[in-house]
């Protein structure tokens, strides 16, 4: 060994490298933003996402117009608009790196977990001052609340799953497109007739991959009068190993294997099924109203081709979207963010009038039966304005409007994604194995689900 006694060249190099590394890492490490975001003129700047991508030029143009109009009417607030939404793949990294927007867009599947992990700010004390907050449907507001009633976000859109169907295939199969099925037996009969048209036509399709099978099976179980999870003495337990769970799976099994009305290809997800519907090869599938414009735009179809019915049975699964707030955002930013969200998305009839007028001019669809965010007079007035500007065949959605009010809309179970993973497996078994043992499947899945639900706080 050469060099200083007891210190080798490697050690010197190692120490130097370690020091350099420490300095570099210290320099690179993000520090939590402690700034209030208010400049010396009292102007608060907030970063918000939800800006439409460049591939949606009309929506983006309208969004930017709204930002300008908002900043003009609110001179003390500046909007730093960004594309995107809460994406589980990048959310944690953005939060850890101090890059998360002050106001971020979420789906209804996200708030429960974000609240539990304290990844969203408590906005309870500011919400009361937000105009129209009292008119928001309490069921939708509940999605953004914790067990103690504290509020962490606001809903800005909603849907409930119904039955989307191809009117042309209904006619071709001798079915009345104005009288879609209202029971699962009728769905089964219609699916058989549609698949009998041949040429690869599928009567009814459903998801069974990437947690989407579990999501839809939940809705199936709700529609059969059951639940996926229930709370007993403060503890959550799986509830799908029930008569409703059995009926739902039996119906799927019979359509797949007895009637052969669900096609041979399974392990489908939403993009696959929308493609089948867009290609005119699918009769029906479970979907919210927002699927219609997606299919029409993506596959260049006509709105006249599609009808929407309420989901058969007593209840359906509801979802939607909204905005939550960065847990590190200052009170000034939260207040400014709430002002923006309310002005842009929750202005009641006033907002609807602006949006509908502009949408009609741009050729954007108006007249879909959802979202319906409010209750009482605010919603009635919103509906009236929407009907006035409607440019889609509203009568095609009448079966949904007529019956959906009688169908209870239930929210997702706690730890929804983990439960959906488990139920995905059940859905896959029933759709890929003719001899699937439904009782055993439900029993095994319930055991797994109980373990997942035991962690719910």
């Amino acid at each position, binding site marked *: *060994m*050469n*060099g*200083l*006694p007891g210190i080798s*060249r*490697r050690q*010197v*190099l190692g120490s*130097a*490298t370690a020091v*350099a*590394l420490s300095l*570099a*890492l210290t320099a*690179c490490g993000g520090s939590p933003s402690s700034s209030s975001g208010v400049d010396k003129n009292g102007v608060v700047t907030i970063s918000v996402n939800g800006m439409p991508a460049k591939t949606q030029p009309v929506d983006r143009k309208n969004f930017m117009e709204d930002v300008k109009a908002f900043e003009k009417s609110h001179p003390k607030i500046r909007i730093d608009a960004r594309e995107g939404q809460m994406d*589980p*793949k990048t*959310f*944690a990294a953005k*939060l*850890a790196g101090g890059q998360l927007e002050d106001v971020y867009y979420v789906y209804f599947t996200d708030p429960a*977990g974000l609240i539990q*992990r*304290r*990844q969203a700010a408590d906005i309870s004390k500011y919400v009361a001052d937000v105009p129209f907050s009292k008119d928001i449907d309490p069921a939708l507001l509940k999605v953004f609340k914790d067990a103690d009633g504290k509020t962490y976000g606001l809903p800005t859109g909603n849907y409930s799953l119904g039955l989307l169907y191809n009117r042309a295939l209904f006619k071709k199969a001798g079915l009345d497109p104005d009288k879609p099925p209202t029971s699962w037996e009728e769905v089964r009969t219609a699916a058989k007739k549609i698949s009998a048209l041949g040429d*690869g036509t599928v009567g009814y399709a459903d998801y*069974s*991959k*990437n*947690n989407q099978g579990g999501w839809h099976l939940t809705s199936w179980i709700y529609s059969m009068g059951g639940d996926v999870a229930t709370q007993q003495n403060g503890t959550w337990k799986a509830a799908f190993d029930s008569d409703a769970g059995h009926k739902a799976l039996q119906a799927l099994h019979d359509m797949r294997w007895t009637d052969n009305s669900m*096609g*041979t*290809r*399974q*392990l489908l*997800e939403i993009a696959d099924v929308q493609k089948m519907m867009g290609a005119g090869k699918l009769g029906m599938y479970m979907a919210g109203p927002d699927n219609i414009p997606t299919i029409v735009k993506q596959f260049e179809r006509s709105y006249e081709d599609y009808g929407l019915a309420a989901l058969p049975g007593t209840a359906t699964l509801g979802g939607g979207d909204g905005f939550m707030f960065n*847990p*590190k955002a200052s009170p000034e930013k939260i207040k400014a963010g709430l002002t923006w969200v309310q002005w842009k998305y929750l202005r009641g009839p006033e907002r609807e009038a602006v949006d509908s007028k502009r949408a009609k001019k741009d050729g954007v669809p108006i007249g879909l039966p959802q979202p319906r965010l409010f209750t009482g007079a605010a919603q009635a007035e919103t509906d009236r304005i929407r009907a006035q500007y409607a440019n889609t065949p509203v009568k095609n959605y009448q079966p949904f409007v007529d019956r959906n009010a009688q169908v209870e809309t239930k929210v997702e179970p706690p730890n929804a*994604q*983990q439960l959906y*993973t488990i139920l*995905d*497996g059940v859905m*896959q*078994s029933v*759709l*890929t*194995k003719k001899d699937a043992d439904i009782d055993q499947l439900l029993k095994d899945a319930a055991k*797994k689900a109980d*373990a997942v639900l035991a962690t719910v706080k």
Partner: protein
Amino acid sequence: MTVQPLSSAVAKSTGQEQGDPAGAGPPAPARTDAAPRPAGSRLRRTVRENLVAYLFLAAGVLCFALFSWYPIVRGALLGFQQVTFAQPAQWVGLDNFQRLIDDPLFLTAWKNTGYFTLLALVFGFAAPFVTAVVLNELRHGRSYLRMTVYLPVMLPPIVTMLLWRWFYDPGPGLFNNVLEVFHLPAQQWLESENLAMVSLVLVSTWANMGTTTLIYLAALGGIPGELYEAAELDGASIRQRLWHVTIPQMRFILMITLLLQVIGTMQVFVEPFVLTGGGPDDATVTVLLLLYRYAFVYNDFGLASAMSTLLFVVLGLFAGVYLRLTRTKG
């Protein structure tokens, strides 16, 4: 003729055999007759002489440290923490590992991954070797066929998956149409619990064998022709030439590709993620797919990190044992 061990070749090129224990600089001058110097001045001189080399080294070390070693260490630490990134992380000891073991899918994922790796060895290890040997023997069209074999590697993985999804489609899919021509029953390639994993291995083999085939072809080209001539003169058959000349000559490269293949296939993700989503009935849930769900579906980074640490340890142990065994036998 024996293949020179890589470690020996590396040792020569770095000057270790000439007395430089660090192996990081030019050969050290002979010092036996030099008067002893103060240790500090010797260090200063060494640093001065090698300053430029250290600077070049520092850039590489810094990049590795920042983008490779630091994430690895941080990832391993996360496995022992409960993290939300909104609150300070909490140390939870081995809780995450306990939760992993309690997950009913944990064992399933390891079994499935082991099964995939085994199948990938059967198909994926033999296929490129056989292809390379056959291509090497061809007199005409070798370049064209070599390009054809390599072509799938150039396709983006997602395009490959979508292409194979059509091949496997139980309705209008290519494979079932071919079976129909031969009056054979249609198969549920991805929808059947028994066939799903085999189907994924076929995709993986098709998509990845091009690179390994090229490596084997290069190695085959390096085998001296006189060895084959001598074997032929001794009356060796094709099988005997393959067994006694080709395989021993390629032993080193085959060992390395086997190690890399096991490490690669144990981390299978894209195939089950795109084609089956882990189904049917969890038959294709792999370790990495489960890890992905923990991190990006359930947002549980502690659990995901614990799983990745476990995978790292398993692969490290495997590589260590494998290298030790092969070195002993070599």
